């Protein structure tokens, strides 16, 4: 198959599908687990890995940041598909999204079980009293239905509703970055970086929608002119 064809949206060959499924995906999967493995090693003092002077804070921040990283990576897949005109990118989207969910569950578990020693009273109080925890918690809850309906089967069964539901990811990413921004003491450089990244990723989608909307309108106008 000519190389060019593959890069321009032609159905991918069986060989490259196999390579994605059996090589690239497993390698990426392991790579996505590296931050969690590092934290586990540090928690049990394995392989000389240390979590530093304040291990709970370090775990909390590391898991939180990797949640945002995976949300951003997942949101990059569609723009990358458009840019490279290769649908292969979308084959990784679910995995990245689920890793965002995995890390946010770790983030939440560290907060509730280690930092708050499992005291649910503390959790309710924080959710009620501290806006940055309220929005963080709502983002986590909104991720649950997305994770549950991430299977191919659910996607088929839900049809158009699936697409609508999974648009929640945009709100989740906004809330996640907002949660981080509100949580830092004073230096907002890193949350700002995420906010800029997210603005570009969401801005791109808005721009694309407007463009397709505009072309629909112009098609409609043409149709109207034709009709008259």
């Amino acid at each position: 198959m000519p190389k060019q064809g593959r890069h321009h949206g032609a159905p991918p060959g069986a060989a490259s599908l196999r390579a994605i499924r059996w090589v690239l995906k497993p390698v990426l999967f392991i790579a996505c687990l590296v931050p969690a493995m590092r934290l586990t090693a540090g928690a049990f003092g394995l392989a000389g890995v240390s979590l530093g002077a304040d291990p709970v804070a370090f775990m909390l921040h590391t898991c939180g940041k990797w949640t945002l990283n995976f949300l951003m990576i997942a949101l990059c897949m569609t723009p990358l598909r458009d840019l490279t005109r290769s649908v292969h990118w979308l084959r990784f989207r679910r995995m990245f999204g689920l890793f965002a969910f995995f890390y946010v569950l770790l983030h939440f578990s560290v907060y509730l079980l280690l930092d708050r020693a499992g005291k649910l009273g503390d959790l309710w109080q924080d959710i009620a009293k501290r806006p940055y925890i309220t929005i963080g918690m709502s983002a986590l809850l909104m991720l649950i239905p997305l994770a549950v309906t991430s299977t191919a089967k659910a996607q088929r069964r839900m049809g158009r509703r699936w697409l609508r539901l999974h648009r929640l990811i945009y709100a989740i990413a906004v809330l996640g970055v907002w949660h981080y921004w509100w949580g830092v003491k004073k230096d907002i450089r890193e949350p700002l970086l995420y906010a800029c990244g997210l603005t570009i990723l969401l801005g791109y989608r808005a721009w694309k929608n407007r463009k397709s909307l505009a072309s629909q309108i112009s098609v409609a106008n043409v149709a109207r002119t034709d009709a008259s």
Partner: protein
Amino acid sequence: MRKTITNLGRIASSDITPQDRYLSRRALVAGGLGLAAIQTIGRFGGEALGESAPGALAYTRNAALSVTDAPNSYKDITTYNNYYEFGTDKSDPAENAPGFRTQPWSVTVGGEAEVTGTFTLEDVLKPHPLEERIYRLRCVEAWSMIVPWVGFPLGDLVKRFKPTSKAKFVEFKTLYDPRQMPGERRSVLPWPYVEGLRMDEAMHPLTLMAVGLYGKSMPNQNGAPLRLIVPWKYGFKGIKAIVSINFTERAPRTTWAVSAPEEYGFFANVNPTVDHPRWSQATERHIGASLFDQRRPTLPFNGYGPQVASLYSGMDLRKYF
């Protein structure tokens, strides 16, 4: 004043000479080989008198004013702290401060006092015998440590400047030198860092001017050469690398209180019942605790209530947080 420091600092032989030896040499020059200089050497330049530990200080232990809890490790104390002049990450000070020049150093004293002017660090320190005090440290971010500081009571220093009856507050400033302090190149806080105490707080026997920790001269990242320790207040009151002491009639406009007045107050007394707007102050994570240890309850005035609560009798500590 700033000019003096930076110009002299340009000589920068501190980069190649161990700090304590450098210091004792300067003390010799400054003191004209007099008795005072020898005392200074005895206190700062252990090496010159044949003691082996570099930077070792001569001090006595003040057990009466020390807590009995085990201090945190030297490593944790010197690699995990806030010192925004060197960066906002807690590992930044240890990374960015080693080249910081604390010699020569001078302190300018001004305002409502009879004795004012610019003094060399040696002159500031000379008359004060050093003592070690193991204090609790509670950061406003809800973590805590136990630190064996070496220093002397701020009150003893204040008396030497003979503050007038108009002096109601004392204000401190950190060095402003963005070339040496990379954090000051960003406007994350208004520079220079300003802190202050009410006069009775400054004169309280627990309030310490610290010049060292763990028996050694103060590491740069912990606020060398001269920093404040007020153990019943949140850590940010403990201003570092002090170059200015000013006696004022009005409350100083302190950095964090100016920067985020709804979150940080002038008094900043450790208080488990007054939350930071974004987090609870009722408990703290103790540095050095294991991952599975629970948070510890935070004590009013960081456990120093019996000694200091009377300073604030009749004050609404929810309003004056």
